C-alpha cells in the first residue's frame, strides 16, 4: 500500500508541457486557419438563418425538438481542433465566430460570446480527455456532445429559465447533445475526410494520409 497522501500531486510545468507536447506550437497557418474558419462559419450561420426560417414552424409542436439542428452551430468547436490539432483550438474558433457575429450584429447581443466560449470549451475538453493524441470518431462525437451541453446550459439558464425541468430543459439539453455528437462530431469528421483530396489540409496532420497523384 502506498502511504496515504491526501494532497494531489502538484501539476508541475513539466507535466503540463508533456501533456500538451503532441500539439506543439501554434504556427501562423494554424492561427489564421482557425480564424478564417470562424469567419466562414459566421457566414454559414447567417445563410442558415434563411433556410432555418422555412423549417422552424415544424418544431412548434414539441419545442425541445428545436435542438435537433443545434449541432450545426457547434461544428467549429469540433472541426477546428480536428484540423489544426492544437490545445484551445475549439475555444478560439467558436469564441471568435461568436465575436464575429456580434460585430455583424447578432440578435443575441454580447451573450453569444459567453455561449460561444462555453461551446468551444466543451469541444476542447473532449480532445483534452484524449490527451491531444486521439482524433477519431469517438472523441469527435464526445466533443460535439460536450459542446452541445455547454451551449444549451447557457440557453436553459438565460433564455428559458422558467421552463419546466423535465418537460423541457432535460430533453432539450439531451437532444442538443445528441445533435452535437452527430452533426458536429460525425459531420466534422466527414468534412475533414471530404477536404482531404482537395489539398487544403496538406499543411496539417489531418491531411497527411491522402493518396498521391
Amino acid at each position, binding site marked *: 500500500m502506498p502511504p496515504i497522501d491526501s494532497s494531489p500531486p502538484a501539476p508541475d510545468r513539466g507535466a503540463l508541457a508533456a501533456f500538451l507536447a503532441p500539439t506543439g506550437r501554434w504556427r501562423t497557418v494554424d492561427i489564421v486557419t482557425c480564424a478564417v474558419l470562424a469567419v466562414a462559419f459566421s457566414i454559414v450561420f447567417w445563410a442558415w438563418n434563411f433556410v432555418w426560417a422555412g423549417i422552424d414552424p415544424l418544431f412548434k409542436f414539441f419545442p425541445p425538438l428545436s435542438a435537433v439542428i443545434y449541432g450545426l452551430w457547434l461544428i467549429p468547436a469540433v472541426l477546428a481542433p480536428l484540423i489544426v490539432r492544437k490545445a484551445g483550438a475549439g475555444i478560439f474558433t467558436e469564441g471568435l465566430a461568436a465575436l464575429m457575429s456580434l460585430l455583424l450584429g447578432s440578435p443575441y447581443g454580447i451573450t453569444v460570446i459567453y455561449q460561444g466560449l462555453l461551446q468551444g470549451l466543451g469541444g476542447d475538453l473532449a480532445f483534452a480527455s484524449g490527451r491531444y493524441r486521439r482524433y477519431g470518431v469517438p472523441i469527435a462525437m464526445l466533443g460535439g456532445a460536450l459542446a452541445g451541453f455547454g451551449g444549451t446550459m447557457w440557453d436553459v439558464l438565460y433564455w428559458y429559465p422558467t421552463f419546466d425541468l423535465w418537460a423541457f430543459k432535460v430533453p432539450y439539453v439531451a437532444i442538443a447533445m445528441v445533435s452535437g455528437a452527430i452533426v458536429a462530431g460525425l459531420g466534422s469528421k466527414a468534412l475533414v475526410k471530404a477536404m482531404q483530396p482537395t*489539398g*487544403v489540409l*496538406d499543411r496539417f496532420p489531418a491531411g497527411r494520409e491522402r493518396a498521391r497523384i
Partner: protein
Amino acid sequence: MISVEFRGFAWRHAGRLASAVADVDLRIEPGERVLLLGPSGSGKSTLLAALAGLLTTDSGEQTGAVLLDGADAADQRGRVGILFQDPETQLVMARSGDDVAFGLENQAVPPAQIWPRVDQALETVGFPYGRERGTDALSGGEQQRLALAGVLARRPDLILLDEPTANLDPEGAKAIREGLRTALADTEATLIVVEHRVADILDLVDRVIALGPGGALAADGTPEAVFGEHGDSLAAQGVWVPGAPLPVRPSGDAGEVRLRGEGLTLAYPGADRSALDGVDLELRAGELLAVTGPNGSGKSTLALLAGGLEKPTAGRARVPGERTGLHRLPAKRLATHVGTVFQDPEHQFVTATVRDELAFAPRAAGWESERIEARVSELLERLRLDRLAGANPHTLSGGEARRLSVAGALAAAPGTLILDEPTFGQDRRTWGELVDLIADIRDDGTALMAVTHDRDFAAALAGRELALDQGKATEEATRC
C-alpha cells in the same frame, strides 16, 4: 543586395508523385536583375516561394538547398519581399496604410519611422488614395500597387515578383512598371521577376533565365544572348520570344444572331454609379466578339448579364426561342443555351479532379461514354494537362487553372459561349492551343464573346470588338 543559390534543389508538393521542380542549380549574384521564364506549370512560382522561405517541410518534400548569402532561405525571411500571383489574398489589414505598416511592425521598425516610410512607399508606386482607404474598395490594379508598396517599404535585399501585371489593363500595367523602375533606381536589391509577356519587362532586367518543363534550365544569359541564340528553340518550348510571329485565325462569315442583349444595365447595391449602363450587344454564330476596356469598366459585369447569371437592373439578354430574359431561365435550361467562363477560374470548379471537370459538361449534355472519353483525352493532351488528370483543380498553377476552366466550357459548348479573360497566365504554346480550340468551336458555328486585355488574342480571333469605358460602350468596330 544578396546572393541567391539553388544547389541541386527539388521540390515535391504534398499529394503529388512528381516533383514540381528538380535538379535546379543556379547562382544569382548580388544586385542582378533577373527575368525568370518558363512554360506554365514549370515551377516558377514554386521557386519564388522557396526563396521567400515559404516551402516548409509540412507542405512537401525538399531535396538540395536554397541559400541566400550562404544561409538557408527559411531563416532569411526578413530580407526578402515577395509579390504573389494573386493580389487579393496578400493584403492583410483593412486600411491601406496599415497594410504597408504591417510589414514594418513585424520588422520592429521604430514607431516614429513607420509612417514616413509608409508614405514614401505609397508615393513610389503611385498609389492614388490616402492611407485611410479601405483595402476592399480597391480595383485589381490598385490592390497590386498597394501590395507592391508593402514589399518595397520593407526595403528587402531580394525582391521577388510573380506576374506583377497579369490581369491589369495596359495602362495599369505600365503604371506598375513605372513604379517599379523608380523603386529599383534607388536600391541595390537583387530582383527576380516572373512574367510571361517578356517584351514589356525586358528593360528592367539584365539577365534572363529560362526554365524548361519540370524546372530544367533551358537558357541563361543576357536578354540579347538568350533570345538571339535560343530564340527559336525557346519559342518552340512555349516562351514568348519578342517578335516571334503569332498564329492568326480570322473568322469566316457570321451567321444568325444567337444572343441579343438590349440596354443591359446593372448597379451594384450601394454603388454610386451603374457598373454597366445601357449596353447593347449581339452575338452571332461563327463569330467572336472581343470586349475590351480598362480595369473596372464593367466587362465582367457585362459577361455576367449576357450569360444570364445576374439579374439586370434594366434591359435584358435573350436568346431566340425563349420568351423570357436569360436570367429567369432555370439553370438546367440556361446551360443548354449559354456557357460562361469566369474571370477567376477557381470559382468555376464543381468537381474534385481535372478529368471530371472536363467530363462534366459532356455528361450533362448526355454524350455517350466513348465520345466523352475521346473528347476529354484530346483536351487533356492539347492543353498539356494530361499529367494532372487526377489532380484536384484547386492545386493547379495559375495558368493551368485558367486552361482547365476554359477547356471545361469548351468541352461540349452550347450554342453560345462567354469567356472572361480566357488567356491570362498562359505561355506561348498553351496560348496557341487555346486560340486554336476556340477558333475550332467558333468555326463549328458557336457564337462567342470574350472579355480580354490581351491584344494578341483579339487580333488572332475577333470578328468585332466592343470597347467599354465606365460602364458604357464607347465604340463597336468590325475588325479584319
